[in-house]
């Protein structure tokens, strides 16, 4: 059974327009997304800024309320739970944030910060057990237990991200949503954190929803990848095969834009003109058609549906009937 099943999830934010806020419009941040995550699996989610990937990551664990659709976690729809019930379920799904500088409370020591998570879910019977558990968690993420009494400002970016990971791990979750966990870090530290996330996955059987814009990182860590554009999934597939032979024109241009260290690599760049269009008034038909180098007549009018191509690939594009 799947750990997480997302069915036709939509998240719309109202924006007020016109005099006295009359006439409501909506930002279609996530617009009908369906996917599954199996236990112990890493699902990568890529797309440009403004495509709704962060909102989707947050909606999955109900940090932002969803407008429509079902979120089945272990078979239970968590989008309809009361606040108290949802809080008790949060032990099973946690989040790691992008910016390790703003996601830790500067007034709490590491012990207090990780201990807080243990207290909320009543996982430590007394202070000694709490301390012992925090020490073990710090060791697990490669920090020294003696650091438990320090404050966040005493740590480097990479160390802070490790604290964030320890805090998420404290409640023994089954799923962790990682929202751009390495994009604020230097390459050498980035590699350390990616290796750590992989080790923790092997040790604890964690599933990850890994949101990032760097395709090389996502390919490295993910089993499967979802490519998102303007609130919709445009392509999904096994990560190696998707990166080797992308089908959707958007995936192809995204891959061709990834910088490559090797000066001899002969790649043809597909430059995407312009920016991501406004999600308040998404283009008609295929949302990608104004930037698509292969757009034809019907792309402007018909919305392409996700279709299976081969055994493990779905793509939403008229070029693939």
């Amino acid at each position, binding site marked *: 059974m799947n750990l997480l099943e997302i069915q036709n999830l939509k998240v719309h934010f109202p924006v007020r327009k016109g005099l006295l806020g009359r006439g409501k419009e909506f930002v279609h941040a996530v617009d009908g997304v369906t996917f599954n995550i199996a236990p112990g699996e890493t699902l990568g989610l890529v797309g*440009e800024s403004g495509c709704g990937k962060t909102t989707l990551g947050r909606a999955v664990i109900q940090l932002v309320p969803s407008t429509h659709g079902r979120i089945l976690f272990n078979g239970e729809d968590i989008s309809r739970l009361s606040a108290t019930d949802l809080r008790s379920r949060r032990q099973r799904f946690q989040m790691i944030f992008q910016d390790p500088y703003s996601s830790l409370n500067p007034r709490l020591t590491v012990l207090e910060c990780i201990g807080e998570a243990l207290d909320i879910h009543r996982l430590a019977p007394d202070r000694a057990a709490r301390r012992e558990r925090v020490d073990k968690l710090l060791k697990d993420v490669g920090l020294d237990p003696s650091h438990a009494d320090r404050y966040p400002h005493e740590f480097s970016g990479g160390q802070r991200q490790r604290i964030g990971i320890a805090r998420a791990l404290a409640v023994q979750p089954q799923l962790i949503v990682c929202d751009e966990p390495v994009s604020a870090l230097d390459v*050498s530290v980035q590699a350390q954190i990616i290796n750590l996330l992989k080790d923790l996955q092997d040790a604890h059987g964690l599933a990850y929803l890994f949101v990032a814009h*760097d395709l090389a990182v996502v390919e490295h860590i993910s089993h499967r990848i979802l490519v998102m554009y303007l609130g919709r999934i445009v392509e999904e597939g096994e990560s190696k095969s998707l990166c080797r032979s992308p089908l959707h024109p958007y995936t192809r241009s995204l891959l061709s834009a990834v910088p490559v260290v090797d000066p001899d690599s002969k790649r043809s760049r597909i430059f995407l003109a312009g920016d991501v269009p406004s999600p308040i008034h998404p283009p008609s038909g295929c949302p990608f058609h104004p930037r698509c180098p292969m757009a034809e007549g019907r792309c402007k009018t018909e919305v392409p549906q996700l279709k299976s191509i081969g055994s493990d690939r779905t793509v939403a594009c008229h070029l693939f009937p």
Partner: protein
Amino acid sequence: MPLLEIKNLQLEFGTVDRPHRVVDGVSLKLEAGKTLCLVGESGSGKSVTALSIAKLLPSPPVRYVGGEILLEGRDVLKMPPGELQKIRGGVVSYVFQEPGASLNPVFRIGAQIKESLTYHRPEKANDAEVIRLLKLVGIPAPEMRLKNYPHEMSGGMQQRVMIAMALASQPKLLVADEPTTALDVTIQAQIIELLQSLCEQLGMAVLLITHNLGIVGDIADDLAVMYAGQIVEVGPVRDVLKNPLHPYTQALIHSVPKLGRDVTRLTTIPGTVPNLGSIPSGCRFHPRCPKAQPPCSTEPPELMTLANSRQVRCPLWDSPNLNQPANGSL
């Protein structure tokens, strides 16, 4: 004569009793029309080096302890304030990391570009010239766009405006400090392409500061790698990327995840960049270096000059590359 020559630059922050030397003996050379990339992790001193070229760091807090910055043969560090003001924009222009934070939010972008023209080319301070500049940096419908406020533009467009503003004074050197770090990969590719074509069209030299080794190969002629305030390796970009000699450069290149490569673990550099208050003795990289030998912790290595204009700060440069993953090269 090179356009820019930095000789043995030394910069300090902190008090006189407890100085923090953020740049320690950096020497760089950039010929007119060429592109030099300066790469290093956060805290390596690359931005400070770049800012000092137009003496943009106020003193105090920074102290220019030693060295020379020769711009067209004249030492920037010894210039009187009036002359410095002419250099800024006139010879060297800057593009910074966050276009959103560099543009003034309360003025239209046309007015902001015109301001730069009023200072440097007053005879050209008109809408026609602003439109020409916006066209040059590839902004569609420039006649309409010049009336926009910065918040009405996307990050990529804002960065193009910043570049247009930097070009307004017709500089000979453009210093781009992490110009694409805040942007998406697709937009990053556009901006790098733009810088490259401007470089060719206008014969302008570019000093590009970045921590992204991927964009280096596309744009640079030469590459300089910085670590803890020192240059550890310099050379033609192809040679350095293909055959890095310093263990730090090697580790940096191999810790970048590459598309389509089947590796289960990434190569990492253990530890973190040293704090400037506690720089290691001897070679500054030795606590993190896979090749470190006993003398590395006591004897600071010199920057050695090798054949075909390469320089490296490691006496063990010709020993085998330990960072090389088992399954082949780049």
